C-alpha cells in the first residue's frame, strides 16, 4: 500500500511538472519530463557519465564513511559523558550554523578540486551524526541501566552492551541523514570546484551551455544515488528494529 501511495505521489509530481512546462512553454526554462528522460537516457550511455557517476558515488561514500566514523566517536564520547558533551557543544554548534556555501568556498581555497566536495560534506554531516548518536546513547532504558548497576556491571560494559545497542535506531537514522546530506553537499561542492569527473561538473557544464534538460538529467543521477541509499537504509532500519525492540 505504501509503495502504491509513493508511486501515486511521484505521478502527481511528474504531472504537475508536465503542466508547468506546458504553461511556461520554453525548454530552456523548464523542459518537459519526457525530454529530461530522453536526455538522461542519452547522457547515461556515455563514458563521461559512467566515470562521473562512479567518481561522485566514491566521493559521497568517502564523505559518508568519514562522517560516520567521526560522528560515532564523538557521539559515543558525548553520550557517555556530560562533560565531553559540554566541551564539544560550542564547536559542533559553530560547524552546524556555518552555511554550506561558506564551507565550500573556504575548501576551494584550501584543497584541490576533488577533495573540496568530500571535505565540505564531512563538515556538514558529521555534527548531525554526533548529535544523533549522543542522543541515542543517552536514551537507553534507565531500568536496564539500573539493573546493570544493581549487579555491579562496569560502566564500560554497560556502555557497550546496553547504551550502544539501544542507540542503534538513532545510529541508523543518523546514517540515513548523513548519507542524504553527503550526496547533496558533494554535488554542490562539485558544481563549484568542477573536478575532472563528477556529476556536479556535468551539471555545471550543461548550465553553461544552457542545456537545461541536461542539467536536470545530471541532477536526476544524483537523485538516483540518494534513492538507492535510502532504500538500503530503510531495509537496515527494519532489520535493526527487529533486534532492539
Amino acid at each position, binding site marked *: 500500500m505504501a509503495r502504491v501511495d509513493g508511486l501515486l505521489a511521484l505521478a502527481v509530481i511528474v504531472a504537475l511538472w508536465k503542466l508547468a512546462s506546458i504553461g511556461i512553454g520554453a525548454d530552456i526554462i523548464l523542459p518537459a519530463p519526457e525530454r529530461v528522460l530522453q536526455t538522461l537516457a542519452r547522457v547515461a550511455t556515455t563514458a563521461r557519465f559512467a566515470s562521473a557517476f562512479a567518481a561522485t558515488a566514491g566521493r559521497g561514500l568517502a564523505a559518508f564513511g568519514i562522517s560516520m566514523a567521526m560522528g560515532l566517536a564523538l557521539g559515543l564520547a558525548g553520550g557517555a559523558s556530560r562533560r565531553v558533551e559540554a566541551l564539544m557543544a560550542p564547536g559542533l554548534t559553530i560547524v552546524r550554523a556555518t552555511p554550506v556555501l561558506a564551507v565550500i568556498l573556504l575548501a576551494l581555497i584550501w584543497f584541490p578540486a576533488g577533495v573540496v566536495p568530500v571535505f565540505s560534506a564531512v563538515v556538514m554531516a558529521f555534527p548531525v551524526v554526533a548529535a544523533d548518536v549522543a542522543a541515542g546513547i543517552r536514551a537507553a532504558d534507565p*531500568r*536496564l541501566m*539500573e*539493573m*546493570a*548497576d*544493581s*549487579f*555491579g*556491571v*562496569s560502566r564500560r*560494559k554497560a556502555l557497550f*552492551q*546496553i547504551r550502544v*545497542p539501544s542507540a542503534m535506531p538513532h545510529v541508523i537514522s543518523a546514517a540515513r541523514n548523513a548519507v542524504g546530506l553527503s550526496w547533496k553537499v558533494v554535488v554542490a561542492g562539485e558544481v563549484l570546484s568542477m573536478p575532472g569527473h563528477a556529476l556536479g561538473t556535468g551539471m555545471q557544464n550543461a548550465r553553461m551551455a544552457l542545456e537545461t534538460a541536461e542539467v536536470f538529467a545530471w541532477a536526476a543521477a544524483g537523485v538516483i544515488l540518494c534513492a538507492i541509499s535510502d532504500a538500503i537504509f530503510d531495509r537496515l532500519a527494519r532489520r535493526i528494529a527487529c*533486534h*532492539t*525492540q
Partner: protein
Amino acid sequence: MSYTISQLEKHYGSTPVLAGIDLAIPESAITVVLGPSGCGKTTLLNILAGLDHDYAGSIDGFADGRASYVFQEDRLLPWISARDNIAFVLRPSIEASQAQHLSWQALSSVGLDDQADSMPPAMSGGQRRRVALARAFAYPSDFLLLDEPFSSLDLKTRIAVMDLFVKIRAKDGRSAVVVTHDVREAIYLADRIAVLSERPARVLDVVDLSLDRSQRSYTSSAAVDLETRLYRSILS
C-alpha cells in the same frame, strides 16, 4: 551473615516514605515484606540493594554485601540470548567459556536449558521471569532481593515459578527479601512476613511461619487463620 534494618527513614523532599523501619532478616530464609501498593516497598529494596544511598538509619549486613535483584519487570536485554543475559551480570574475572557454562547451568536449574539461545522477545512471560530468577541465582551475591517478582504472571504460571523459586532458594541457601502486596503469595513463600503500613511505611506486624509448605497452597484452608491475621494487620 545477619541482616538487620534499624530505624530506617526515607523522605522524598518533604514527604516521608519510610518512617523508622525496624526488621531483622533471618539468615538463609525468605522474608516477605507485605504492604499496600505505593507504601514504599520498592524504595526499601532499592536502599537494601545499594541503589539509593539517601536515607537515615542503618541496614547492617546489606551495605557490606552484594545483592541479586529481581525487579518487577524482567529487565532482560532484548538483543542478546537468555544465556548471554545471565553471562552479562557475571564477574569480568570469569573466563568467557566458564561464564557461558555457568549461565547454561543457571538456565538448566529453572528448566530452560533448551531455551539458552532464545532471544527474550521470543519467550513467554513465564520463561522470561525464570530467566530473571536464573540470573539472580547465578550472580555471586550475598543475598536476594525480589520486587513483586510474580505479580505479572497468571495464577498457574505464578504458582509454578514460585515453586521453582522456593526449591532453588532452599538449595542455594541465600537469604531473600521479597516484597509483595498479595497476602496469599506472602503465605506461599515466606519464612517470615513483615506487614508494612500505608505510606509513610512502618512495620505493623511480624509473623514467623511454621506452617508446612504442603499446607500453603492457594486452595488449602490450613492458612486461613494466618490470612485473617494478616488482613487485620493491613486493614488496621
